[in-house]
Every structure is written in C-alpha cells, then in structure tokens.
C-alpha cells in the first residue's frame, strides 16, 4: 500500500514539475519578447530627445513606463555612454551601471536587464537601459504549485480508496495463504488448511494449495509409518540375542547385528564385506556351497552346525538360512539367524550322562528302588527290587504298587502317600517312616524300612520309594536285645557276687586288723615280760631268741599295717582336689628328716605343677618313692635325689631319680608286685608292699608308673597322673640340702 502511495505521489510530482518548468520557460521568453517590444517602442520615442538633447522630453518618455509595473528602473545613455535620463527620477545614479554596454539582455539577481540601442538613421545615438523584475513569473509559479498540491492530494485520496478495495479482494486471501504456508513450514504440520475467502481466482488458488497440503500430509504419514516399521524391524534385529547376518550371493557379509557381535566377537566395522566362511569351521569346507545351493532354490533351511568365533573358540549353533529377494523376485542374497546352543548341548549331554549315572546307581543299588506315578503304577523297578520281591521287572512295570504291600497295610499306605504329597516335602528319610511290611510275589511278608521322595514333573506326581529288607536286621536286633537282657541279668548277678565278696573282704580286713594284731601284741608282750622279769632263770641264749621273736612280731606288725593300707586304698574313693605337688614333697621331706639324720643328701627338687588329686594318697606316693631313694642311696657318701616333672613329645611325667644301688632291669616287671623284693632283708629292710601301694595309687589316678635303672647306677621312677598334661606351669623352686 505504502509502495503504491509513494509511486503515485512521485509520478504526480514529476508530472507537475515538468509542466511547471515548461510553462515557466515559455513564459519568460514571452516576457523578454514583450520587454523587447516595449524597449523598441521606447527607443523610437527617445531618439528625438536624445538628438536634441532634450532632457525633459527624455524624462517624460521614460515616465510613460509607469504604466508597466514590471519595469523597476530605466535609463537613457547618450552616444558617448553618459547617463542622460533616468527612471524613476529619484533613483540614485549609483543604481545604474556607468557604461551601458552592448545591446541584448541578461539576467541579473532575479531581474532581467535589457539594453536597446537608440538609432537615428542607422546611427547609434544612445542606449536605453531597462530593468524588469520577474514578479509575474513568481505569481504564476505559486499558482502552479497550489494546483499541483491539490492534484496530489486528490490523487492520493483516490489511490487510497482504490488500494483498499483491491486489498479486500486480492491481498487478504493471498496473505492468508502465505500465513498458512509459513505455519506449515515452521511447524511441519501438514494438517493445517487455508480458509477459502472468495470464489474467484484466489479461491481457486486456496483450493489448489489445500489440495497440495492434503497430498503432502498423506505422503508424510505413509513415510512415517514406513519409518516406524523399519525402526521396529531394526530394533527387533538389533535386540535379538540371536546372531542375524545378511549376505549376498558371493557370501559376503552385508549386515551384522549386535547379537552377532556378542556371539562371534567381531564388530560390524571389521566384519562387513568379509566372506561368511570366516565364521565357518575349516572341518566343514563344503558347508557354504550347500547353503548357497539351497538358497538359490529358494528354500529355507534349519540345521545345527559349528561356528568359529573371533577368539578361535568353537560354538555350536542352530542356524536358519532363508533367501532374500529383490522386488522382481530374484534371490539376491540370504539371511542367516544363528542361536548359540553350546550351553543347551552341554546341558543335554549332562542330562544324558546323569540319566546314565542314575540308572547305573539305581541298577546297582542294594536297596530296592521303586517309582510310581500318580495312579500308583510302577514305572521304575530296579534289580534289587526284583530280588527283594521275587518278581521280574517286566512283570512289575505298570502294576499297582499295592501288589507288593500286604493287604492290611494298603489303605494306610495310600493315605500316607497322599499326605506326603500334600505336605510339599520332597523327601523323608527311612527313620521317619513307620516300619512297614512288604509282600513278596510268593506271598511271604517281610519287614522293610522305607524312605520316600516326591517330585512333580510336567504336572505329573512321581513318588519314589527306597526300600530295605530289614528281616536280617530285625533278627539281629532281637538277638542283641536278648543278649543285652541276658548280659544285664549276668551283670546284676556278678554285681551281687562282687558286693558280697567286697563285704567279705571288708570283714576280713577288719578281722586282720583286729584279730591278727592281738596275738602279735601278746607274743611281743609276753616275750618282753619273760625277757625282763625272768632273765635270771633263763638259760644262756634265751634272751637272743626272745629278741628274735620280738623282731619278727614287729616285722609282721608292719606287714599287716602295710597290707591293710593297700587293701584300704583299693576300696577308698578318691577325694580329688587341686594340690600343689611341691607342697606335698616338702611335707614328705620333713617326715624323712629323722631317717636321714647324719647323712649327706643332695636334694634337687625341680619345679612341680599343681594337679587334681587325692592329696593324702599322692603324699604316700612321694613318701614311698623318696624313702626308697633315701634307703637305696645309703651306701653312697653323697646321695643325690632328684624330683621333677618332664614334658616330652606331648607326654608328661613326674619322676624321682636317685644315684643309689639301682637294680637289674630284667626284674623290672616284678617291681610293682606285692611282696616283691630285690634285696636281702639284711641289706635293705622292707615289706615289699610299698611300690605295690604306689602302683595302686597311681593307677587309681588314671596314670601309670615305670622305672629305669641299672645295677649300681641309680634308679629313676616315672609316673603319670590323669590331667598332668593340662597342669599349669610348675612352681619354680629348687632346694638343696
């Protein structure tokens, strides 16, 4: 619109300007002509005045110029060029040029100067000077300007009216179309339509535009759907665990999905364009040719083969090869879908092996193994079952299990099985079942022990029972029970006998203690009385005999006491308590003081532990061993006696060592027997009961005693006590005397 208006105004202005210039030029020429005419006339009238030098007349002639308002000044110069007359008369002389110059006209400062020669008979007698302003010209120019402005405004008005009408008819529909086009471009939305505003050409244009949009929309939609299907297919191929490979008829690889990359280890970049034989086993050189043959015939092949991965590993695959055709139906390549079945094959082999192993186990099992299905029909019946039920397998299979269960147990057994199935347990051990009975084919009943397991395979309940014929065991058990009962009876009898014997022994000991000692006392007493009171009347030598009698009674008294002690130890209960052995040894040493008076003894008492024992009895052990050591070192000028505790190879023992007379090891086994003596009574006194007592005490403490010795090389007695190994670290002490 603005453009239209600008154009209109420019055209109008140019046109008006052209006309005005033309008119002004034309008018100025006519003005000059008119001035020239006036000048010529005036020059004629002035000739006389000039010639006669009549100044008044010249002034009057010039004054006639008042009638022409254009003339602002006029002058008459004489033939010599001197100013002769001037108009208006009061105008200063300086307003006129000094010399008039040649004829002609010129513009000067918006005025026209005209010089007209005044002639007389062809002789120039002077010059007329006229000065006219262009006032009429400017009036005329102002008029034209006003007209031009009016025309301009009128034209603009008309142009506005016209363009408004045009816009409503043409511009608006086109602009709407442009808007729609822009929206479509910007938003890519082809469903937008332009509105039809008229039935004329622009209406047709809108229809055509909308038609085009509709077509584009349809095609875009079709394209989008195609793209969707394509990406769906691509996603399926890409996400498949199977290796999906496309190849051309030259067996070159054209496509390679992620599954293929995972399975074979090659990525797409390195494998595309490579021959498919790269993946095939060199052991099967003819494979690809056969596949190609099949593909050419257009068939789809499924088969299992092996493939070689990038790392050289061989995998087993299940392969589907199908032809790819171009739109004309020609086979241009093939696709192969491979699935890694290495794991499946391995599992299958394992299943086969397991089955073989299981059937081996079942066949060689010592127990009868029988499986039944949900209807209680036998499906497995092993060799042991054949033997147990005296029934060949071919007769047993398919038979109800009831056949091998005694009539009276059948109901209970069925209930039991059902209950077992309900518990959801998968197995129950033999011991958890009630003892049941089996029925052999020949009708014999026998006791069995059973375990049962239950599995569900493909919705089928399968129960497997493992049976053991316990006839023999039952018999053995019964026998054991009978023997046990007998044994118990016998033990009771023996215990009673033993108790009686013990009681007898006790009363015997009591008798010995009391009755045996009394006569001894009497013998001693009367011998003594005889010795003292009747010495005067006794023959010579009698005193010596009496002394012998008394010594014997003394010895016998010791013997009786020792024997009683030994017997008491046998019967006595141990009163165990924690006892530091060092303390016991100290006590024994104190008791021995009297006996060792006057002798040189070196005691080496090494650190001894504290142990759980009967302190009274343990003291007797040390008392016996130490008094023995003291006794048998009597011939030594310096007796060395050592008491200590050894820990060696996990064994520990207490020991008492002396440098005494020792003994011959060949009698070592007699050492701890009652009344066993290695020395004559004259050499070393003793009853032969001491070591027997020690042995009994040590054994009562769960230990044992032994000795190492050599004749004249001393002796060492070792003994152990239960719990000695766990004894805490021995006390640190050393003593010498």
């Amino acid at each position, binding site marked *: 619109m603005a453009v239209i208006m600008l154009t209109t105004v420019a055209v109008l202005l140019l046109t008006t300007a052209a006309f005005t210039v033309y008119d002004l030029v034309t008018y100025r020429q006519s003005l000059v002509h008119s001035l020239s005419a006036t000048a010529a006339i005036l020059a004629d009238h002035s000739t006389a005045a000039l010639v006669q030098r009549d100044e008044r007349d010249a002034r009057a002639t010039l004054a006639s110029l008042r009638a022409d308002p254009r003339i602002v000044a006029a002058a008459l110069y004489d033939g010599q060029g001197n100013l002769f007359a001037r108009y208006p008369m009061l105008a200063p002389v300086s307003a006129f040029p000094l010399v008039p110059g040649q004829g002609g006209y010129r513009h000067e400062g918006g005025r026209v100067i005209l010089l007209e020669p005044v002639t007389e008979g062809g002789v120039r007698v002077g010059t007329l000077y006229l000065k006219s302003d262009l006032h009429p010209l400017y009036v005329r120019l102002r008029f034209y300007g006003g007209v031009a402005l009016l025309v301009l405004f009128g034209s603009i008005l008309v142009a506005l009216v016209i363009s408004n009408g045009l816009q409503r008819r043409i511009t608006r529909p086109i602009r709407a179309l442009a808007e729609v086009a822009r929206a479509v471009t910007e938003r890519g939305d082809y469903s937008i339509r332009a509105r039809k505003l008229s039935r004329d050409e622009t209406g047709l244009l809108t229809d055509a535009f909308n038609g085009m949009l509709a077509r584009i929309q349809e095609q875009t939609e079709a394209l989008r759907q195609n793209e969707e299907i394509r990406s769906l297919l691509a996603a399926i191929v890409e996400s498949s665990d199977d290796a999906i490979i496309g190849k051309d008829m030259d067996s070159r690889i054209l496509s390679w999905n992620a599954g293929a990359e995972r399975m074979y280890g090659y990525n797409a970049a390195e494998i595309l364009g490579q021959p498919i034989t790269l993946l095939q086993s060199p052991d099967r050189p003819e494979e690809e040719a056969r596949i190609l043959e099949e593909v050419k015939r257009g068939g789809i092949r499924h088969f299992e083969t092996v493939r070689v991965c990038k790392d050289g590993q061989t995998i087993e695959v299940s392969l589907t090869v199908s032809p790819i055709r171009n739109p004309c139906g020609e086979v241009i390549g093939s696709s192969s879908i491979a699935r890694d079945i290495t794991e499946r094959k391995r599992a299958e082999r394992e299943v086969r092996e397991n089955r073989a192993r299981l059937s081996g186990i079942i066949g060689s099992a010592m127990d009868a193994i029988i499986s039944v299905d949900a209807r209680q029909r036998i499906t497995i019946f092993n060799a042991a079952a054949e033997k147990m039920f005296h029934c060949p397998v071919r007769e047993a299979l398919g038979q109800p299990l009831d056949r091998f269960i005694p009539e009276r147990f059948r109901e209970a057994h069925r209930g039991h099985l059902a209950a077992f199935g309900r518990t959801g347990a998968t197995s129950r051990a033999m011991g958890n079942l009630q003892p049941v009975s089996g029925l052999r084919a020949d009708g014999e009943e026998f006791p069995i022990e059973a375990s049962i397991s239950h599995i569900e395979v493909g919705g089928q309940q399968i129960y497997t029972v493992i049976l053991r014929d316990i006839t023999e065991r039952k018999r053995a058990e019964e026998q054991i029970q009978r023997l046990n009962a007998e044994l118990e009876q016998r033990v009771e009898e023996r215990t009673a006998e033993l108790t009686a014997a013990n009681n007898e022994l006790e009363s015997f000991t009591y008798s010995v*203690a009391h009755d045996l*000692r009394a006569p001894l*006392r009497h013998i*001693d*007493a009367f011998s*003594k*009385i005889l010795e003292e009171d009747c010495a005067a009347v006794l023959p010579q030598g009698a005193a010596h005999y009496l002394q012998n009698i008394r010594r014997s009674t003394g010895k016998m008294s010791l013997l009786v006491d020792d024997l009683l002690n030994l017997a008491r130890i046998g019967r006595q209960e141990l009163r165990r308590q924690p006892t530091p052995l060092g303390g016991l040894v100290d006590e024994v040493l104190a008791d021995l003081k009297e006996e060792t008076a006057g002798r040189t003894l070196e005691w080496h008492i090494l650190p001894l532990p504290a142990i759980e024992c009967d302190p009274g009895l343990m003291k007797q052990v040390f008392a016996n061993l130490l008094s023995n050591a003291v006794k048998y070192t009597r011939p030594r000028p310096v007796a060395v006696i050592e008491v200590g505790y050894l820990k060696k190879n996990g064994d520990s023992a207490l020991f008492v060592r002396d440098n005494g007379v020792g003994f011959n090891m060949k009698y070592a086994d007699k050492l701890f027997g009652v009344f066993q003596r290695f020395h004559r009574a004259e050499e070393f006194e003793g009853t032969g009961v001491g070591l027997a007592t020690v042995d009994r005490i040590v054994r009562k403490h769960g230990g044992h005693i032994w000795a190492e010795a050599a004749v004249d090389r001393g002796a060492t007695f070792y003994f152990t006590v239960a719990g000695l190994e766990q004894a805490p670290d021995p006390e640190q002490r050393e003593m010498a005397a």
Partner: protein
Amino acid sequence: MSNNEVELLLVEDDPNDVELALLALRKHKLANKIHVVRDGEEALDFVFARGAYAHRTKNGPPKVILLDLKLPKVSGLEVLKAVKSDPRTQAVPVVVMTSSREQRDMVEGYWLGVNSYIQKPIDFNQFQTIIRDLGYYWLVVNQSPPPEAFRA
C-alpha cells in the same frame, strides 16, 4: 579319797589282754579297785546294776571305763552307745582301747561320745607306757564328775 567301790572297769574278752593290762596297772600301783568284765552284756549289767550286779545300786559309777570294741554278745560300740545315751551314765568317762585301726570305728566312737580312743600298740614297752599314762591321768589327774552329774 574316793568312795567308789570300783575305780576302773575293764571290759576285755581276751584273757591275755586282761593279764597284760592288769600287769601294767599293777606295776604302776594303779590297780587298786579294778573290776574286769568279759563281754558287753556283763559290762552293761555292771554299769546299770542289773542281773548279776543288781546289788550295786547303792554304789557310784567307776571313775573310768576301759572298753575293748570287739566283744562277744554286745559289741564295744553298742556298750558305748548305751552308756552315753543314758542320763544316769553318760557322764562316766569311757576310754576305748582296741587293736583295730579301722577309721569307721574311730569315727563312730567319737560320734557316740567316747572320751578317749587308743590303739593298743604291738610293742609291749609302748603298751605299758600307755596303760600307765592312762591310769594316772583318769584316776589321779582328772577330776571325776561329781554325783550331781549322774541324774537318776
């Protein structure tokens, strides 16, 4: 000084022991008023003044009883029990003299209230010494229970 008819009652079945005991007591002049009974029953008859000893009612109890344990009819421990459980006699000092070294006899004796328990040594010298000390102690040194100690 004593008004006891019998100062020492010796209960002993073995004649040898009786002889030896008396020998020892006599040797030390301690056997003034000794009565010997030869079994438990007789001992109890004497102590409780019954049977053959019924006439003894007026007489006081002995200063001490020397009691062997192994006795015919009624054992020494039974005699001890009877004496020590009767208020009329329980104040009488009883000294057990026995050959036995059985611990349970000793335990039983002390439980029943024996005043002294002596094992007869085999050596006669020792025996004599013991008899002498014993007689001296119970008959001379020891203050016998006053009559009030014997409640009827």
